[in-house]
């Protein structure tokens, strides 16, 4: 039977919803599901993790060195914790992408990145070529499976669990070569881009940082999170954490509104799993219309304020 260890993602003392998504993927594998919380003070986070439905046990590792998620510090501890587990899962967020390959290298396992579906305990589907092909991969059964779980493909496991929390101590020599300096967080009261059911995104067509206010304003009316194309980020209209796409965030909202975005494949990769895509673009030939469920051709500077009023 499988025994799965999930590495919790957390920030500022709070568990990231990506962890409960990994639990869903682990449930699809089946077996014992444990969560490891590595932090300076894991108490509150571990309690949160213990409430996720389907979790059998939470391992809390307290260490001042774990105050920030430094991959080369966390990985040796996780490799120790992983003894006896058949699977080690982390989310395909920047946290998991940074960390999990280090764990895989220590365990001598080839990593399966971005698991979309679980076919069986060792067979998974994952995207390659910016999602233009989906491959079925089989991992060997003679070593631990290390994988990242594509968060846009999985719903978060529910609450209502009551797993035991166990304080774990791990003996591993930890490097001191890396110093955390700071994290500048995009402060926003808006719904989180990666979990919001509605997202409004602006592209190069929006034209400037000032003009982006009409995107924010529409989003607020809809109670939506706000995203952007790479071109909009590169042009400095909005910060990098708002980028949607192959190299930004992969999201799956129920409603995605693309405004002044042409629909390059790299952008579309980020929204393939969206429920309904609405596109507003002045160019009737823009490729975004090939995938949009509802398209409206016209000038965004007229349409967006009008739409906001009509809501």
């Amino acid at each position: 039977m499988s025994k799965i260890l999930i590495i919790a993602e957390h920030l500022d003392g709070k568990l990231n919803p990506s962890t409960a998504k990994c639990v869903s993927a682990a449930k699809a594998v089946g077996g014992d599901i444990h969560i490891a919380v590595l932090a300076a003070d894991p108490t509150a986070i571990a309690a949160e993790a213990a409430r996720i439905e389907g979790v059998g046990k939470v391992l809390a590792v307290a260490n001042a060195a774990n105050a920030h998620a430094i991959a080369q510090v966390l990985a040796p501890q996780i490799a120790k914790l992983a003894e006896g587990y058949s699977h080690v899962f982390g989310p395909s967020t920047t946290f998991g992408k940074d960390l999990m390959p280090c764990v895989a290298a220590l365990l001598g396992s080839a990593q399966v990145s971005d698991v979309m579906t679980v076919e069986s305990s060792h067979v998974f589907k994952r995207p390659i070529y910016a999602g233009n092909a989906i491959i079925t991969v089989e991992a060997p059964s003679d070593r631990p499976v290390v994988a990242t779980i594509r968060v846009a493909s999985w719903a978060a496991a529910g609450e209502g669990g009551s797993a035991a929390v166990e304080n774990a101590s791990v003996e591993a020599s930890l490097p001191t070569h890396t110093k955390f300096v700071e994290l500048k967080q995009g402060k926003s009261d808006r719904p989180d881009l990666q979990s919001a059911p509605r997202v409004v995104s602006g592209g190069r067509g929006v034209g400037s940082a000032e003009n982006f206010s009409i995107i924010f304003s529409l989003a607020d009316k809809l109670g939506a999170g706000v995203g952007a194309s790479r071109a909009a980020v590169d042009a400095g209209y909005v910060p990098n954490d708002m980028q949607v796409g192959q190299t930004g965030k992969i999201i799956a909202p129920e409603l995605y509104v693309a405004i002044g975005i042409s629909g390059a494949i790299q952008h579309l990769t980020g929204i393939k799993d969206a429920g309904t895509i609405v596109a507003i673009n002045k160019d009737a030939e823009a490729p975004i219309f090939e995938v949009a469920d509802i398209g409206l051709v016209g000038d965004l500077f007229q349409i967006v304020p009008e739409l906001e009023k009509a809501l």
Partner: protein
Amino acid sequence: MKILVAYKRVVDYNVRIQVKPDGSGVVTDGVKLSANPFDDIALEEALRLREKGVASEVIVATIAPADAQPHLRNGLAMGANRAIHVVSDGPIEPLTAARALLKLIEKEQPGLVLMGKQAIDDDANQTGQMLATLWGRPQATFAGKVDIADNRATVIREVDAGLETLDVELPAVITTDLRLNEPRFIKLPDIMKAKSKPLETVPFADLGVEGGNQLKVSHYAPPPKRSRGVMVKDVPELVSALKSKGLL
């Protein structure tokens, strides 16, 4: 200081990938191959560090079949001093690539390794992290800005929450994000000059690295297709379309 740049050749990012009808792979015959865009950014960063006097030599390295020589010549034409071609038969996994790159590091002793955050063919996003781990050195992934001073690198990383700054001791592995820089274009005279730059070839088997892939790919499928929906002519129609889908 030497900088080693891991420089992978991939299907050009403008190519629309097609899955073969029998699910045995993707069509790669006759498609345009280019440097992985992130690796061009890595090379550009290395060249700028050399121009600033931080680095003395830039080496591009690739693990690829024998026909990848022109790819390395491009890296030389962009400005690398020399190239190393580890000749492999077919595609290799990130763990194998990391093990092979480690062998090159042991020989070359670079002060910095620059590579892409992900190769846009397998989209694995693993090799740099694996290499840093096997090497026992720091990593700074998804770099948007790199400053080097006093044998340390200060790296601003593009993470989901915003921008994180790490300060790492060298030697280290840094993987690039898109906004780190804009790679230069190759000029014609440089293509000529590149022809006489050193390009060393090493058979993969000579590295003493375990080959063979752990992961077995059994099937390739196209993604579920999203089809073109309806076009509405104005805002009131858009609002009613959204309402009829229960989205408003």
